């Protein structure tokens, strides 16, 4: 895949290969040389119209984008995060890049593209899926995807790219798109709404338990482009879904912009579990290059007794600005946020969550683990808000920071607003270092230094890793190991 195209695929937890590939050094830091269709750099109403036209969108979608664009023009760049960001020239970015040829079968797919997937360790059938080939047209022996697709269709689950959804299910898209993150929600969400190129759409009908993990894999390839994907997941009454996303990008000296929006809607008694392993290119050890990752992720527990749970492992990006949140609207709804954010060298992360309690007896839990190494800066920023109607609501927040070395920083910014006297908010925070005693203890038992570090870090992250699907957890651990290479000694 190249440019800003985003493909969806289904797997039965067989992403392990992908994530493993992501783990080796920055193994995903290669560039694929294929012909790409670009829109010229720059942003204007005209560009937005062209983009919409290129994608063959209906007029309402074009208008939606234009509305967002006009709103964006009026907004200042947010500067409240604890991040040092060089000014971004939005006119220097190309807002659309897609591979030129649209393949019909795997045989027609650009060999360079297939090689990319091979380097990433993606199995053949998935490579086909990623290349945008209809999976049912590929080799019988490996068309596992077909089985999945069939199984999903039988269950009534809709899972496709956002572009496809806009064409095929316009009613659903119109009903839910922007209903959790409005077009003018914040600077980056407005930008995304104006220029998002693709993304995933998931719809789980009433009472259906999605028969497998759904996953999306994102990759930025083309130079001087931004990636703006948009994901929308709707879980109807009583349905369940677990969704995974993984991300990589090539090594480049310049910074690249990624501004995604993810919206989750959980109706009555529905449950959505959203897991992310983010390994965008973090820049080199001197802080040159890397992805600017500005993401708005929000879930809406719209129905009573619904549950939304975010789990994230963030090891990549030069800058991470990301606060997956839950609006607890329905009574007794539950929101969870489990996060491991690791920064090394010159990486900066300002990440956390917002739990907005509106309904009665709503519950939220926040477990944030920040690991800082090198000269990096790692901040947790969280808001727990108990509105007037949040009778008997509860929140528990645990925020732990682990420092490796002497030149990194960890910061915690917990905000609380409690407007209902019956609501209970608990906050615990710790900061620790990997001690010389721990290192010597491990080594005196025969464990090598670097293995000791990853063991201690893994122990520190355990609470979060256990929330990930098992294979993902194993790979997340490996990813941390690689990301921490050279952090000690």
């Amino acid at each position, binding site marked *: 895949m190249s440019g800003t195209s985003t493909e969806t695929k289904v797997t039965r937890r067989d992403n392990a290969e992908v994530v493993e590939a992501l783990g080796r050094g920055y193994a995903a830091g290669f560039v694929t040389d294929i012909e790409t269709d670009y829109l010229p750099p720059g942003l204007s109403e005209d560009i937005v119209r062209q983009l919409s036209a290129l994608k063959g969108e209906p007029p309402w979608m074009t208008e939606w984008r234009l509305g967002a664009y006009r709103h964006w023009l009026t907004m200042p760049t947010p500067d409240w995060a604890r991040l040092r960001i060089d000014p971004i020239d939005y006119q220097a970015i190309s807002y659309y890049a897609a591979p030129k040829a649209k393949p019909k079968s795997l045989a027609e797919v650009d060999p360079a593209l297939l090689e990319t997937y091979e380097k990433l360790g993606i199995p053949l059938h998935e490579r086909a899926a990623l290349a945008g080939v209809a999976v049912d047209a590929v080799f019988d022996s490996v068309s596992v995807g077909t089985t999945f697709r069939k199984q999903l269709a039988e269950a009534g689950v809709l899972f496709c790219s956002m572009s496809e959804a806009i064409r095929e299910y316009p009613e659903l898209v119109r009903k839910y798109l922007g209903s959790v993150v409005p077009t003018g929600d914040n600077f980056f969400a407005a930008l995304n709404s104006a220029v998002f190129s693709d993304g995933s759409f998931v719809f789980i009908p009433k009472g259906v338990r999605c028969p497998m993990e759904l996953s999306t894999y994102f990759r930025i390839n083309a130079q001087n482009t931004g990636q703006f994907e948009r994901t929308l997941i709707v879980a109807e009454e009583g349905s369940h879904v677990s969704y995974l996303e993984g991300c990589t990008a090539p090594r480049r000296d310049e910074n690249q912009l990624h501004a995604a929006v993810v919206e989750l809607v959980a109706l009555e008694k529905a449950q959505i579990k959203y897991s992310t392993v983010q390994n965008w290119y973090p820049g080199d050890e001197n802080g040159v290059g890397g992805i600017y990752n500005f993401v708005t992720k929000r879930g809406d527990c719209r129905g009573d007794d619904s549950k939304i749970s975010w789990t994230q492992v963030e090891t990549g990006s030069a800058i991470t600005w990301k606060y997956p949140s839950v609006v607890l609207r329905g009574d007794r709804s539950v929101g969870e946020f489990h996060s491991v954010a690791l920064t090394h060298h010159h990486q900066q992360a300002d990440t956390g969550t917002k739990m907005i309690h509106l309904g009665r007896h709503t519950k939220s839990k926040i477990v944030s683990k920040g690991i800082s190494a090198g000269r990096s800066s790692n901040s947790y920023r969280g808001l727990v808000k108990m509105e007037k109607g949040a009778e008997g609501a509860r929140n528990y927040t645990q925020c732990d920071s682990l420092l490796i070395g002497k030149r990194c920083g960890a910061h915690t910014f917990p905000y609380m607003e409690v407007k209902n006297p019956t609501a209970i908010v608990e906050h615990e925070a710790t900061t620790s270092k990997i001690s010389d005693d721990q290192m010597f203890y491990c080594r*005196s038992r025969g464990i090598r230094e670097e293995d000791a570090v990853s*063991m201690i870090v893994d122990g520190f992250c355990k609470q979060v890793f256990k929330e990930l699907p098992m294979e993902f957890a194993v790979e997340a651990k490996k990813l941390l190991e690689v990301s921490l290479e050279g952090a000690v000694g």
Partner: protein
Amino acid sequence: MLKIENLHARVEGREILKGLSLSVDAGEVHAIMGPNGAGKSTLGNVLAGRDGYEVTAGSVTYNDIDLLSLAPEARAAAGVFLAFQYPVEIPGVNNTYFLRAALNAQRKVRGESELDSMQFLKLVREKLKVMHISDELLHRAVNAGFSGGEKKRNEIFQMAVLQPQLAILDETDSGLDIDALKQVAEGVNALRSPARSFLMITHYQRLLDYVVPDFVHVLADGRIVESGDKSLALKLEEHGYAGIGESHPAGAAA
């Protein structure tokens, strides 16, 4: 097996060991006794290779190799084990997982095959019986929230699984009540064998009632000042460290 000759070592610029010599043969149990500040724990740390302990003179030969040239993990693989005076907590890391990682790391260096979880579990079950360790302790994080006695028993349990050739017990008896002391001693005695040697660093002689040493040495001011058999320990108990050796530190506690 172990030959320490004229060992001098500094910690934070201060000379602690001042020409210590000691020879230990296979299967022997040596007790190192002495007042606070004599250099007992320094000896254990130097042998295990802790950072910050600088050897300025002398040599340590272990099974014909220069022990001081090895990294701590290489010493462990070569069969040296230090039971810590203050075992370290590692939150979130499962005790069994830790021990298996340690054993397999050592086996790998020695060119032996690594144990899979079933084989390891079998080994652990065997060792549990002698150690008075409950299954529950295995499933907790390494030393996290353990009582003092549990921590010390866990050290001996690790020793039982790792099967070292040279075990250094650094004040393993300190902070234990009499029942815990007996259990720890029982664990140590179960591990005595003609191929395994022990260096027991202790302040009091009461451990020696349960683990009877072949030799007792008195360490004072960085040197071995007197050596003998078990009766020396009893003499110390009676008269204190003040009457021992030709040079003893001022104000030594008994």
